[in-house]
C-alpha cells in the first residue's frame, strides 16, 4: 500500500484520492491543515502578546523598631474609708479602671512599672488582668514599696496587647489617716 | 668682345637656371598652401552629471595639414573669442613631422602658443597632416548658450620658422 506524504511545501488543497491509501491520505491532509491553522493562530496570539512596554521603579521599604505604651483611664484615687466589721480592719480600696495598651515590633521586651513614692505609708499593689492572649506574660502582682522598677509584663515579642490594671490600696488601723501620692510609670524595655 | 660674349652666354645660362629655380620656388609658394586647418566646427555640450560637471565633448574631425619648410619650423595657435564663457582646448595628435606641444587651452587674447615644434626642413615637400583634437568643457556655473550666447573661437594656426 502506498502512503502519500504531504510535505511542508504542499498546498492545502485536498490530495487526489488514490486507490487503496485514499482514506489515510485524506486524514493526513486534515491533520496537516488543522496543525497549520493552529500554528497560525498561535503565531498571531504570540504576536499580539509579544508587544508591550514596561517601566520600573525602585522602592526602599523599611520598618523601624517601635515600642508604644499607653494608659487608658487617667489618674485615679483610691480611698480607704470602710472597715470590715468582722475583721476589725479597713477594707482595701480597689480600682480596675485603668487599661494598659502597648505595641512592640521588637523582641524580648518587657513592661516595667515603678512608683515615684520612695516610702509610702500605705500599701499599694498593681495586678495586670485580662491580658491579651499572646501579648506577653503578666506578673501576678506588684507592690509599690519603694520607687524601684518592677517587671509588670514580660515576654513581649512583636505584638500589640492590653491588660486591665487592678490597683489595690490597703492600710492598717495603726497607720492612721493620711495620703500617699504615687506617680506610676510604665516602661517598655528590653528584657 | 668675345670674352664678353662668352661671358654673356654663361651668364645667360646661369640666369635661366636661376630663373627656373626661382619660378619653381615661386610656384611652390603661391600654389601649395603651407598650412590648412579645414572647415569650421560646432561642438555642443548637452549633458551633465548631477553633483558634478557638464559632460565635455571632443571633436577630432578636423586635420591640420602643413608642409615642411626651408628651415626648421613650428606651428603656433591662438584664438579670438571676445565673449568667451566656456573652456576650449586643442591638442595635435598623430603628428607625422615635428613634436606636438602639450594640450593648449584656448583663451581669448592669448599670445600665439606653440602647437607643433621642431618641424624638420624639406624635403620632402609633401603635405603632412595631424589630427586636431578639440575638447570643449563647461561647468554648471558657467551657464548656457541660450542665456549667455555661444563661444565662437577664431582659431588661427601659423607656421613659421622656429
Amino acid at each position, binding site marked *: 500500500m502506498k502512503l502519500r506524504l504531504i510535505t511542508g511545501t504542499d498546498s492545502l488543497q485536498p490530495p487526489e484520492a488514490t486507490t487503496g491509501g485514499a482514506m489515510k491520505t485524506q486524514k493526513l491532509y486534515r491533520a496537516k491543515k488543522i496543525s497549520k491553522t493552529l500554528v497560525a493562530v498561535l503565531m498571531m496570539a504570540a504576536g499580539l502578546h509579544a*508587544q508591550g*512596554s514596561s517601566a*520600573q521603579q525602585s522602592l526602599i*521599604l523599611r520598618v523601624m523598631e*517601635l515600642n508604644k505604651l499607653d494608659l487608658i483611664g487617667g489618674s485615679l484615687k483610691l480611698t480607704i474609708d470602710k472597715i470590715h466589721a468582722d475583721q476589725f480592719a479597713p477594707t482595701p480600696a480597689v480600682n480596675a479602671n485603668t487599661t494598659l495598651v502597648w505595641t512592640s515590633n521588637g523582641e524580648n521586651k518587657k513592661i516595667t512599672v515603678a512608683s515615684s513614692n520612695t516610702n509610702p505609708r500605705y500599701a499599694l499593689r498593681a495586678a495586670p488582668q485580662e491580658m491579651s492572649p499572646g501579648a506577653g506574660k503578666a506578673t501576678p502582682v506588684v507592690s509599690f514599696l519603694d520607687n524601684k522598677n518592677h517587671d509588670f509584663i514580660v515576654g513581649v515579642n512583636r505584638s500589640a496587647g492590653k491588660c486591665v490594671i487592678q490597683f489595690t490600696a490597703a492600710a492598717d488601723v495603726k497607720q492612721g489617716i493620711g495620703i500617699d501620692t504615687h506617680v506610676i510609670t510604665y516602661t517598655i524595655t528590653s528584657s | 668682345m668675345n670674352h664678353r660674349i662668352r661671358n654673356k652666354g654663361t651668364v645667360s645660362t646661369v640666369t635661366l637656371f636661376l630663373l627656373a629655380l626661382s619660378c619653381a620656388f615661386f610656384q611652390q609658394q603661391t600654389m601649395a598652401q603651407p598650412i590648412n586647418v579645414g572647415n569650421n566646427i*560646432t561642438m*555642443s555640450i*548637452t549633458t551633465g552629471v548631477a553633483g558634478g560637471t557638464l559632460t565635455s565633448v571632443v571633436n577630432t574631425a578636423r586635420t591640420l595639414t602643413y608642409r615642411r619648410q626651408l628651415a626648421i619650423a613650428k606651428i603656433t595657435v591662438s584664438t579670438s573669442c571676445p565673449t568667451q564663457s566656456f573652456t576650449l582646448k586643442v591638442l595635435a595628435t598623430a603628428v607625422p613631422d615635428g613634436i606636438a606641444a602639450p594640450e593648449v587651452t584656448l583663451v581669448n587674447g592669448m599670445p600665439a602658443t606653440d602647437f607643433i615644434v621642431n618641424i624638420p626642413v624639406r624635403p620632402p615637400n609633401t603635405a603632412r597632416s595631424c589630427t586636431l583634437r578639440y575638447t570643449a568643457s563647461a561647468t554648471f556655473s558657467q551657464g548656457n548658450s541660450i542665456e549667455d550666447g555661444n563661444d565662437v573661437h577664431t582659431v588661427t594656426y601659423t607656421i613659421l620658422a622656429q
Partner: protein
Amino acid sequence: MKKSLVTLALAGLSILIVESASAQSSAAQNVTLTVNTVYKISTSGNPSSMTVTTGTAGTDALSSVSDNSTTYSITQNFGNTVKVAANLDAALAAGYTLQINMASTKGTSAGTMDISNATSGSAVDVVTGINRGADAGQMVTYTFSALASAGMLSSTNKTVTFTLTN
C-alpha cells in the same frame, strides 16, 4: 554657405537636445512610512524610601507611610483596551503591605491595589481601558504599611514593574 547650413543644422539639433535635457528636471523617490504598534510607559523616577516609624499602642497595624512624589506617562496607539499592570520582583513577607494607586485620564484607575504578592506571573491590573494616545504625568501613590507582629524590616529594595499591554 555650406558651413552656414551645417551650423544651422547643428543649432537646430542642439535645441532638441536642450529640450531633452530640460525634461530631466524631476526625480522621484518612493518613501514608505509605516507606523507599528507602539506601547510606551515610563516613570518620572523612584519614590523616596518609605519607612514605617510609628504606630498606635495596642494596635498591631503600624502607621502606614505613603509616597506620591512620582508620576508615570504612557503612549500607545494600539487601541482602547490597553492596560497597565504592576508587579513586584518578589512578594513581600507576611505582615507588610504595599499598595499602589495610579491615576489616569485616558483609562480607568483600579484604585488602590495591593501588590504585596503580585509577581511577574501574577501582575495586578492597576489601570484599564486606556484609549489610544498619550497620558502624561499621572500620579503614582504608594502606601506601605506593616504589622507590629511582622517585626522590623531592615532597608529592603523592591522593584515595581509596570507593564503596558493590551
